[in-house]
């Protein structure tokens, strides 16, 4: 099954399976696949290079309120895949027979079709390797080039069909001076532009020159700080970890618990939405529900709305908005503010310019207090001028300070970040974030 024929393959396969349903059975199917190239670099040489071609189908086999779910890898060979799907359906029937009715089962019974195909123009991977190795020059480049086709599809025995496919590339790299002194950058998109890559690599090399200065060792304490969009992304990932999930709210496990128990607020300039229309993720999910273009999550610093999976909708008696089971945002967007992006160093004055944060976790989830480290491209700034890189610092602070009472402002532009994550398969998630100037950020180690 080639990527370009996967949509038709899913249609045929689910048609074949639907013809083998028994009685009033309902079948929901979700296809996931990719044809990806991965090239890993270290010291501007190739560490590992290869291709991954994978397809799998998940099936929820329903009879009344009883159901069972399962997935199986697909080969693309029709007879083999028919055999595998038939075996899976047989297993699911056996399991379903011993499981009780599921009171929270909810699925789409419509037949609404949708299709979103984003065609990219990635170079051949051999050409990409040439561009990266030659562009790095004598620099110590480390990173990953990932490119190719990703696709997701939904099909049900009711006849509903939804399709998403995208061809994209994502080069995520860092240039290293020595030890942990490094600068981070990425070049991702749909259409490859060799000049754009060269410009980004040149920018990284200029940052390295600053990293060569004697690093400052800062004592623990509070510092005025500017968080770049990439650094703010790490804070946003913590908020997204249950922060907007209806289930997390109803079970009091949300890190934004104080927004519902104490009417706590973030800064009035903080407005956050799940922006499917502006992202690159599929606009449908595994139970067949489509996602609205935008879901308001935080508006003017106040909690505005949840991400609601079909299962939570049924459990808590509200409408679903097409969230996945884990109710995690896939295209989060924070509205920009009024801080001139080109003037952030002057606005910062004296303090820390934080290019990246790293390895965040909650030190007190109920208070939305998290800890983490500074990483790539973090500098000490005096009077609006970068003075020196710093030795890494650990922060431990709550978002109710960083995006609340200590937030000075957000930049007037927002940067789109395409997630470079490749766990199991290439991610389709994205973020659009401004930078944030914070009056004081607490560092502890």
């Amino acid at each position: 099954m080639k990527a370009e024929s996967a949509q038709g393959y899913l249609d045929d396969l689910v048609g074949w399976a639907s013809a083998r349903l028994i009685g009033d059975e309902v079948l929901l199917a979700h296809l996931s696949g990719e044809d990806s190239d991965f090239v890993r670099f270290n010291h501007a040489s190739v560490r590992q290079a290869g291709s991954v071609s994978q397809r799998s189908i998940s099936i929820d086999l329903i009879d009344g309120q009883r159901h069972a779910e399962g997935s199986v890898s697909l080969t693309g060979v029709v007879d083999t895949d028919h055999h595998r799907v038939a075996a899976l359906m047989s297993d699911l029937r056996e399991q379903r027979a011993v499981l009780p009715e599921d009171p929270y089962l909810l699925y789409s019974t419509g037949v609404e079709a949708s299709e979103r195909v984003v065609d990219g123009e990635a170079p051949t991977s051999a050409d990409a390797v040439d561009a990266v190795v030659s562009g790095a020059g004598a620099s110590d480049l480390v990173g990953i080039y990932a490119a190719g086709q990703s696709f997701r599809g939904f099909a049900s025995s009711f006849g509903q069909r939804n399709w998403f496919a995208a061809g994209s590339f994502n080069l995520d790299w860092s240039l290293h001076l020595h030890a942990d002194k490094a600068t981070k950058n990425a070049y991702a998109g749909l259409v490859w532009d060799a000049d754009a890559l060269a410009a980004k690599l040149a920018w990284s090399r200029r940052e390295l020159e600053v990293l060569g200065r004697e690093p400052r060792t800062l004592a623990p304490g509070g510092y005025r700080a500017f968080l770049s969009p990439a650094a703010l992304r790490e804070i946003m990932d913590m908020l997204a970890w249950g922060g907007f999930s209806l289930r997390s709210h109803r079970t009091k496990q949300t890190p934004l618990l104080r927004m519902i128990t104490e009417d706590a607020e973030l800064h009035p300039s903080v407005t956050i939405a799940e922006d499917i229309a502006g992202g690159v993720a599929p606009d449908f999910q595994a139970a067949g529900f489509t996602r609205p273009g935008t879901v308001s999550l935080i508006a003017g610093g106040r909690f505005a709305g949840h991400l609601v999976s079909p299962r939570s909708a049924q459990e808590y008696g509200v409408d679903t908005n097409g969230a996945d089971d884990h109710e995690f945002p896939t295209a989060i967007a924070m509205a920009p503010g009024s801080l001139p992006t080109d003037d952030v160093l002057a606005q910062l004055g004296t303090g820390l310019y934080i290019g990246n944060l790293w390895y965040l976790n909650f030190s007190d989830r109920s208070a939305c207090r998290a800890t983490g480290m500074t990483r790539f491209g973090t500098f000490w700034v005096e009077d609006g001028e970068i003075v020196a890189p710093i030795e890494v610092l650990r922060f431990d602070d709550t978002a109710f300070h960083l995006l609340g009472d200590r937030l000075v402002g957000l930049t007037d532009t927002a940067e789109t970040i395409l997630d470079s994550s490749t766990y199991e398969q290439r991610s389709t998630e994205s973020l659009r974030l401004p930078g944030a100037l914070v009056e004081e950020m607490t560092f502890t180690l």
Partner: protein
Amino acid sequence: MTDLDTHLEDRLLAALPSDVDYASARHVVERGSRLEVRNGVVEPSATAHNEGVMFSVWVNGGAGYAATSDLSVEGLALAVEQARGWAAATAGRTVIDSPPLLHTVGEYTTPVTDSFDSLSLAEQVALLVDADMALGGHDRIVDRSASLVRFDIQSLLLTNGGGRVAQHIRQVFPDLRATANEGSNTQNRTFGAGNYAGQGGVEVLTRHGFRDAAARIADEAVALLDAPNCPTGTMDLILAPDQMVLQIHESIGHPLELDRILGDERNYAGTSFVTQDMFGSYRYGSELLNVTFDPTVPGQMASYGFDDDGTPAERIHLIKDGILERPMGGTISQARSGMAGVANSRASSWNRAPIDRMANLNVEPGESTVEELIGGIEHGVLMETNVSWSIDDSRNKFQFGAELGRVIENGEITHIVRNPNYRGISATFWRNLSGVADDFTVMAVGNCGKGEPNQVIRVGHAAPHCRFSNVEIFGGES
């Protein structure tokens, strides 16, 4: 091999190219299942059958791989062609130009005392229903669940030099979770953060008392609501084994991965404060610290006969009497560095290439009793069950949190505290190891992320209770 396709091995062998320096085919079929009961409701059961093959080719100083779920003759041929293409494209540009050249023959199967075949699906559901019910014995429990996740993994590594390694691993992850709430205070207790897991069958459930743990977990979650915040100060710290697993993982395991030391992970998982010249002389911890890499522990999560390059597994001391002896590096890292390593070249599945990983990484037991460790503390905290982990990219400055703390005053435990956290620096923390108990709890970590492209792998950790002096300890926001 799958039941469906008994001729697959023949097809794999036929597809392996003979006119290259080295070629391998690594076929993996992983069958997973998940059962969960949450708040009295049986969640949808889920099964997964994930199957494919990766071909790796080394030729003329280049290397490449191609992985596919298409196991037809044509699909395998296409993958081999792609792998050869990558080898040609990378010739002269790789960090190493010599192949590992292992053609190992062997087999390994997880020993199982009590197969899950003896426990029907209905009985497994009933077990979880009972556990979930026992978790719900308090009004202030607002969410609870009991779950059982299992993996059955069959792998076959074939090489063009006659190598054949077949392994069959069975992994079991039981878990219990209780969430208690009052106002803005939410507290969780779990079954060792899901880390009381291992290889085997039903016996994994009994090793750590899964069937009887639910009521205690619920009681402790509720008790934490009324407990004071963890005290702040520099004092003695005892880590229970279900916190030690994380301490070992982050501040010994990752820093000793040779690929990190060689720089492979600098763009993602990070580098290491450990450098190659430290091995053989660097004092990593006090004389009480003994750490082994040991994929041979029966029933531990990452036990195997061979790693994914075919290197035979063996027990090796990485740290002996506090002195750093050996890194965790597989055949390729060993060749790049000129250092001795271990059998730790592991891939998360067929669709990812092997890299240096932890397997079972254990702190060996000492000679004190747990009571003696506690008795030697004037003022300190004992922490149980990891809930938070954060460490810098050199694996040095860390901050970890636990679900529950027990304050120790004048050699006795006095009361529990909530939101216990501590921080330190790996390079000095282990030198403050002042006591190692004689217990030894075999556990796991199921979600170790690393590599580009990213991989999650399951590892094992075993540890006794350990005592550390002069640790910075603190609590939560309120």
